[in-house]
């Protein structure tokens, strides 16, 4: 018997709401299966299980908010298997419930909160909403509540009247996400002594190589500069490991795995930076596929829990329509954020001559507690070096 817990999907998360169960008691579970969809301030995420067995019991009904570490379900006959990407020891794996900002690691799961246990059969619902639900023939089991204490209100009932009850609150709330960003960024600026470096990088060779490569490729296999940037950063981090990992309990906890959090701006407002796991070990095509997949899923609110749990570094690329450069704010408890401005044609001195070259401003914001400018400079230089040999990425 093993517990399936509410995971910590980032240092700024302390609770989440189950909005959908994708398996039911009795179902066989393979490692990597998505068991539930959990909504946080940053939106809804798919939570995978890293073991196999049989789902024996669901303890938290849909629509219920519980703290990180709460037991969501029990799984029988578990054969422990490692998570595919191996969440780094530094970041709270679900079993410890430790968000670095919050409680110390708990040896036992935190009990779901103080109120009397609620069952799916008797949901918390206002009398008026119950009457309305009866009038409309709405089944309120599994319905999320927006009233005091998460109670179902008339508005909640009317919102789903006539619509099938599937993940009623799926999607993200821009105001809540703004709050999550505010909390994380304020903490970052309060606690992390940032230092900043920048380096203009000549993208000429990379651009030419990409154009040739894409001209040969099918539409579906085309590469974007983003894939080169992702790969170059991941490889550079291998050389400068002190920038990859976390600052926890007043000490750096470096990660051997390189999980690059890729900042994705959401059109509805806000942004998220889910991880591309082991980015340094992906081929360029795999990196491109991973990026495409990630962006597409971010747009449809289908990011997985493991992707929010463990990025070891963040990359933010403004794209060709962005500003010239970005001095990032580190996502705590990470150690660094690498930024790329918009590539622009600029005058550059090459072999003693002024030439017009496509240039990009690569920047680094890093935690001065964990590294110094010399290490940071080496990282930017390594990124530059890799981008000059695109064919080797």
């Amino acid at each position, binding site marked *: 018997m093993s517990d399936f817990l509410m995971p910590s999907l980032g240092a700024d998360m302390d609770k989440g709401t189950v909005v959908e169960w994708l398996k039911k008691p009795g179902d066989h579970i393979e490692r990597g299966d998505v068991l539930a969809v959990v909504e946080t301030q940053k939106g809804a995420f798919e939570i995978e299980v890293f073991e196999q067995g049989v789902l024996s019991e669901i303890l938290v009904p849909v629509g219920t908010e519980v703290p990180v570490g709460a037991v969501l379900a029990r799984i029988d006959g578990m054969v422990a298997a490692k998570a595919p990407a191996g969440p780094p020891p530094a970041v709270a794996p679900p079993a410890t419930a430790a968000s670095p900002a919050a409680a110390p690691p708990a040896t036992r799961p935190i009990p779901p909160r103080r109120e009397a246990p609620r069952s799916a059969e008797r949901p918390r619902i206002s009398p008026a909403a119950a009457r309305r639900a009866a009038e409309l023939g709405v089944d309120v089991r599994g319905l999320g509540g927006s009233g005091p204490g998460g109670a179902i209100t008339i508005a909640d009932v009317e919102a789903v009247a006539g619509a099938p009850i599937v993940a009623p609150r799926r999607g993200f709330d821009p105001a809540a996400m703004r709050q999550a960003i505010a909390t994380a960024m304020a903490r970052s600026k309060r606690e992390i002594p940032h230092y900043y470096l920048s380096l203009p990088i000549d993208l000429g060779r990379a651009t030419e190589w990409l154009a040739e490569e*894409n001209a040969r490729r099918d539409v579906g296999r085309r590469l974007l500069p983003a894939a080169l940037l992702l790969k170059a950063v991941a490889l550079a981090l291998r050389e400068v490991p002190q920038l990859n990992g976390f600052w926890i309990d007043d000490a750096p906890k470096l990660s051997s795995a390189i999980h690059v959090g890729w900042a994705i701006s959401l059109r509805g407002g806000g942004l998220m930076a889910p991880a591309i796991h082991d980015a340094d070990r992906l081929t360029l095509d795999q990196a491109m596929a991973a990026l495409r997949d990630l962006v597409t899923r971010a747009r449809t609110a289908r990011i997985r829990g493991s992707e929010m749990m463990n990025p070891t570094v963040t990359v933010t690329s403004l*794209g060709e329509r962005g500003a010239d450069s970005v001095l990032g704010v580190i996502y705590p408890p990470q150690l660094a954020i690498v930024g790329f401005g918009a590539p622009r044609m600029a005058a550059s001195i090459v072999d003693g001559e002024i030439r017009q070259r496509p240039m990009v401003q690569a920047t680094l914001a890093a935690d001065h507690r964990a590294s110094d400018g010399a290490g940071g400079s080496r990282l930017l230089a390594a990124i530059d070096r890799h981008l000059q040999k695109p064919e080797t990425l």
Partner: protein
Amino acid sequence: MSDAETIARLRTILGGIAPDLDVATVAPDDDLRNDIGLDSMDFLNFVIAAHEQLGVTVPEADYGKVSSLLKFARYIAAH
């Protein structure tokens, strides 16, 4: 297929790759990057989806010629 029909199909495709957009509000001559806010990844996904569903192949060099639904429809008509 008339331009209007092609635009309608492109709009559906756009909705598929950018479900967070209200595609009904995308005007035929809105610039998909500057006005609608597609990033390079969205745009590539759009080109790929159009290739899969409409059979049109847009080389990278021609991206400027398909920067709005109307331009894209005319590009398809011409190729």
